[in-house]
């Protein structure tokens, strides 16, 4: 059980927990938190892949590491947008909830343009 496999299993478990949190938790903020957990689990899988492919004097294959750096920044941008949406929803409705109070979401008569 070398370090790579251990963290790989840890990553797989985190993906499971993150997915569970994202699917079941009703509060949007907790869903975003679970999404970040899921993301870090996926990045750990990249880390394991990189660690296993270590060669020519490097600790790990630099290509997946570069991909993870790009993916972390993209995941942060996604979290920032999601949180801005939640806070704007709070401003607009005083509540931050995803279950539409009226089914179908948009059949309020005010309609839309």
């Amino acid at each position: 059980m070398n370090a790579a496999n251990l963290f790989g299993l840890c990553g797989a478990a985190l993906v499971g927990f993150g997915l569970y949190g994202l699917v079941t938790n009703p509060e949007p903020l907790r869903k975003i938190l679970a999404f970040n957990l899921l993301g870090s689990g996926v990045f750990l899988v990249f880390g394991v892949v990189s660690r296993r492919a270590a060669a020519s004097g490097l600790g790990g294959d630099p290509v997946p590491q570069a991909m993870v750096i790009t993916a972390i920044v993209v995941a942060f941008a996604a979290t920032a947008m999601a949180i801005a949406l939640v806070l704007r929803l709070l401003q607009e409705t005083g509540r931050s909830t995803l279950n539409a109070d009226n089914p179908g979401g948009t059949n309020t008569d005010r309609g839309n343009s």
Partner: protein
Amino acid sequence: MTILSVFDIGLAVLILGIGVWTIAAREAFAAVIGFVVYGLLLSIAWVRLSAVDVALTEAAIGGGMTGMLMLGAVARLRLAKGNDTRASLPVRLAAGVLCALVAAGLATAILSPPEAIPTLAPMVMENLAQSGLGNPVAGVLFVYRALDTLLEKVVLILALLGVWSLAPDSVWGGIPGLRLYAQRSSTLTFLAQLLPPLGIVVAIYMCWVGAKEPGGAFQGGTVLAAMWLLVMIAGLRSVPSIDQRWLRLLLVVGPVIFLAIGIAGMVLATAFLAYPAGYAKPLIVAVEFALTLSIGVALGLLAAGPPERVQRP
């Protein structure tokens, strides 16, 4: 069972424990605190996976900036009335089984690597000398897969535009609603005067060393953003309104220079995003500095949120 593997197992168990805590915690504030700790522990895990660049990025962006965003959101969400009903038991059981299935599938896939594990590391190292870079990850980011890095900056700017577009029409062009510290406290002002100069030096060092050692534009940019946010929260510098031309130029200077060098590559060198022989290192370092500036401003404004009030003329 060497000491290190004991440490690894301990670290992995701790990470999983805190991960479950952030999912299962009843109260959102506790979950966010757990998440910040989780982010820092994860960066130690990345060091154990000998990916120091990623450890820096995870600690800076994953643990730090995301944690700050979450804390700001949790503080504002406390005053939201009415919480949602928790999903019913059968739904949660079904979801649990589904997620366990996904995790198990992923675990078996990870535990069954191919016999001869293919790797690109030798290829990267062979051709790295040409670019004059010492850090292979920076080589991949700026030489081999430069298109991904360039487009990823455009993604960052689009995310910022998306956050800004959430503002009501009346306050467009106004000041982002960063929550400043309630009253002017002398201790925070002291920190905001002492730390930023040091932080800026660290950011420049991280960006500069990124060519040879782990470091680079992302990590330096995050430290820069943290310092800027500290100064604004302490009230020493006012939050800039988003319609100022210098702010937009700063945001765009990194990707524009990267794109310009890329297009110049078509003429001077042999292909788009190719560097003329011998000039690779200076060009890349120039791009990295411009990117550090742009990323710092972009991450700071992403954390500040959409505009909320108009500047009194």
